Every structure is written in C-alpha cells, then in structure tokens.
C-alpha cells in the first residue's frame, strides 16, 4: 500500500521569462509506514517538493496521490488530517505571541476535536514536554523545546504522513539526536509514514530506509539505505555526494 505517490511533479516559480523550474519531473513512491529521505544541496528543490505536496506552493503540475486518493490543487481539511509538516526553523514556525497551549488547542479546534484539554496534555506528553510547558510562550523555550512543540502541533490532527523539512538543521548536535530519536519513537508508536528532507546524509542514514538524491530540481537517483552505506550508487553525482560527505566528517 502506497502512502504517498508522486508522479512527474513539476514545480515552478514566476511566470514568462522569469519562470524558474524548481522541481522537474520528480517521481517517487513511499510505502505506508516507511521513512523516505530526500537529500541534495541547498537549492536543489528538496524542500520545494514538500511544500508543493502540502499545497503551500500552488504552482505545480503532475500527479500526487495520498493514501490512494488524488490530490487536487485546492486541499480540504481531510487532506490536512492525513498529511502534516514540521518546519526547518523552530524559531520561525511558532507564533511569537501564542503560548504552547494556544498553538495546540487552536489546531485541535480547527480539526474539530472536542476533548481539547485532555488532548493537549496527551500531545505534550507524547513529545516529552511536561505539563509545566503548557502555558509558556515561545521565547521561554529553547530551540529543541520549540521543535517538540512544532512536532506536537503536526501530530495533533493524528496524521498518517509526516513531512519533515530538515527538522534538526537549526539545532545543535546533542539536541539533534534527541529530536531524531523522538521522531523515530513517534513513528513506531503512531505508525507514521515519514518523508524527510535533509542535507545531512548521516541524519538520513539514521532515519530512512530509502533515499532520493536531488540535483538542480531533478531526482537523479532513488536508492535504498544499504546501497548508500555500501557506497555503491549508480549515478555519478550520488557517488560524488557520498564521497564529499565522508571527507567532511573525517
């Protein structure tokens, strides 16, 4: 069963002579319960794919299927009950004037839940934040705590697919590991499907079973994680990328 399938996805910005093709004919499939990684350099279009899937970028064409259903350009609330996203920068993804409680209860209210109070407590518990964090404002939280709140918000509608847009790149290394482990635990617990964008190959290696490599808006290769670990990719660019990452970490 495919949780997410994307066929011939084109995404562009601007019109006429200013048009920039950010993603060209991207095709990939993600099985239910799997974790799929997308890697590439900055500007290769990996985040753009996620934003097009969620509808934050309206200028796309191609076929997107979520849970076996076709996705229209205008998405309804049912779509957002299935697919949620965690953003890269936890400092920018929380409203500076809304407390944790406000963020979560508004989300729950929008999705029509009734037992909001109990659910807010449950969500905070899920992401490892105690009840003392409930009424804090973002400026009273650290980066890692903010990202936990953002994850709780994404989990609030009980989605099946979680899109992760470099969820740890704005955090320092020890906090990164905590958040990645939290995400792995949550995936097992809630039977989530992950699509994770990252430029960090070790993060993807830790989290994902399958990896797509992007270059200049094109998906040059989709390989499983063993191929990546064994350093035996088919495409020249992937080889290059893997070698570069080895040099970097050595």
């Amino acid at each position, binding site marked *: 069963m495919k949780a997410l399938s994307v066929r011939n996805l084109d995404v562009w910005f601007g019109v006429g002579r200013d048009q920039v093709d950010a993603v060209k004919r991207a095709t990939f499939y993600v099985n239910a319960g799997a974790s799929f990684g997308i890697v590439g350099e900055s500007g290769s279009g990996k985040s753009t794919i996620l934003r097009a899937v969620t509808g934050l970028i309206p200028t796309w064409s191609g076929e997107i299927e979520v849970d076996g259903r076709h996705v229209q350009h205008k998405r309804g609330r049912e779509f957002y009950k299935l697919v949620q996203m965690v953003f890269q*920068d936890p400092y920018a993804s*929380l409203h500076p*004037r809304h*407390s944790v409680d406000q963020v979560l209860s508004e989300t729950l209210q929008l999705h029509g839940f009734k037992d909001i109070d109990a659910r807010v407590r449950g969500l905070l518990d899920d992401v490892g934040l105690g009840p003392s964090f409930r*009424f*804090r404002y973002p400026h*009273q939280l650290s980066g890692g705590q903010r990202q936990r709140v953002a994850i709780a918000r994404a989990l609030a509608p009980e989605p099946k697919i979680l899109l992760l847009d470099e969820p740890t790149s704005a955090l320092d290394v020890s906090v990164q590991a905590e958040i990645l482990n939290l995400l792995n635990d949550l995936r097992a617990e809630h039977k989530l499907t992950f699509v994770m964008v990252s430029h960090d190959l070790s993060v993807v290696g830790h989290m994902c079973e399958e990896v797509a490599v992007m270059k200049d808006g094109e998906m040059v290769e989709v390989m499983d994680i063993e191929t990546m670990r064994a350093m035996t990719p088919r495409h020249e660019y992937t080889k290059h990328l893997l070698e570069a990452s080895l040099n970097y970490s050595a």
Partner: protein
Amino acid sequence: MTDTTPTPESQSLRDWLLTDTPTSRRHAKFASFYKGWLRLRSNHMAMFGFAILIGLLFVAAFAPWLAPHDPYYQELSNRLLPIWSEGHVFGTDSLGRDILSRLIYGSRITLYIVTLVAMIAPVAGLLVGTIAGYAGGWTDVILMRITDIFLAFPKLVLALAFVAALGAGIENAVLAISLTAWPPYARLARAETLTIRSSDFISAIKLQGAGPIRIITRHIWPLCISSLIIRVTLDMAGIILTAAGLGFLGLGAQPPSPEWGAMISEGRRFILDHWWVATVPGLAIFTVSLAFNLLGDGLRDVLDPKDEKS
C-alpha cells in the same frame, strides 16, 4: 509602597507573576503583562508621560469638583485679569471667564477627541492594510492606491475640506481627523503583514486548514497591533494639534465650548497685551502632546516584537 518593602505576600505575588512556568492561560497573560509593565516602569521618561496622562484622566473625570469656577460664567468687570490674580490662578479671558476652569473642562474635550480618533483611524487602517497585504494582487493594488490618494493630501487641508462639507462641530472634526489619519496606519499594517504572511508559522496554521479570516484576525493582527499602538501614541500629539488647529480656525469646537485650540484662537486678538490668554491653553496642549510622545517612545521599547526574539 509595596515595591520598596516587600512583605511576604507581595513577594509571593511577584514570584507568581514572574514565574517561567505559568499554570493557566490567565496566569500566562498576567505574567507577560507584568513583565511588560516592569520594563515600561524602568523607563523614567515614559513613566513621566504616563503620569501626566493619568493626571489628565483624573482632571477630566473630576472636572466639576476641581474647577474653581463655572467655565461658561462671564463677568465682564473681571475681564483679562492677569495670571496669579486673586481667585483666578491663570487669569481670565476676554469675557471674564476663569481660564483654569476652562482648561479643566477642556481636558474632557481633548480626551474625547483623542479617544474617538484613536478608536476609528487605527482600526480602519489595520483593516485596510492587513487585507491588502494578505490578499495581494488586485485587492492590494486598489486599496493601496486609495491610501496613496489620501496620503497625497495635506492633512489639515483635507480635514478642513471635510469639516466644510460636513459642517463645523466636534464630531465632524473627529470624523475629518480620522479620515485623514488612517492611511499611515494602513501602510504600516500592510508592511507588517507582508513580512508576516510568508513566515513559517502562518504556513503552519494554513496546514491546519485555517481560512484567511482566522489567519488575519488571530495570527496577523496580534503582531501588527503593537506597532500600531506605538504609532498611535506617537501620533496623538499630532491629532491633538490638528484638533486644536481646526478649533483655532473656527471649524472644530464652537464657542463657548472650552476646547483648547478654540481658546488659543480667542486669545489671539490680545496676544500682545494679554499673553496668558493664548499661552496657557497652548502650554496645556504642549504638555499633553509631550506626554503622549514620551509614553509612545517607552511603549516602543516594551512592545516592539523585534526585540523579543532574544
């Protein structure tokens, strides 16, 4: 004062307000409000302005008890008494009315004008600006060109034209001032909206299926309002001066109403021989305008969301 000698209760109240782990929605609101107040209190100039405005409120509220004379009572034998004369601290005007009493009653008119304008102009500007900024496209173009047209007129001249069309009087003066005062707020709100609308937290709430009305009112307004409040307090001086200017030109408050601008205009005829008749209400306008400016400056330090990131 409880601030200087903290008793156990006041100490625990302070702790309750300053805690980093609020226990309820209301607690969190009170705490963040209290922290803002502490920051404002450390700005002495702002507190000075704040004190003057509290004084103005007090004077306006208790005018009948504070005023030594009836502000409308004319006594031609006592006309143009100098400052500090017996029974008339600020002297009397050309019809023998006590200037201090007129000032005290005039504070009510000033507050009335300021409050009404502050309720109309920023709200109109906020609506126009946020809708234009969030909707973009043709809505933005049309709304902002209308704003530009209003901005292109000199304020007082436009207000004059409105008052001339609507008829003289305080309510019409308020309307006229509001009509000329909203465009800068619309500009400000639009600029703020443009920076906010592409931020991740707006994307995040869109992913929860929130509609544009909810996004504008719940997520964009709270961020625009602080800069608008700052701007309004800083503009208050200008609003008072425009109101006074209209009064001075005879198009605002009508005699015998003790509006400060109208009082200056009456005193203008005697300004060489009897300077205090025009000077005293002028000083009152100056003091209140200065108070608003000082407070606005302090509020900017407290409310500016750009400083809160740290």
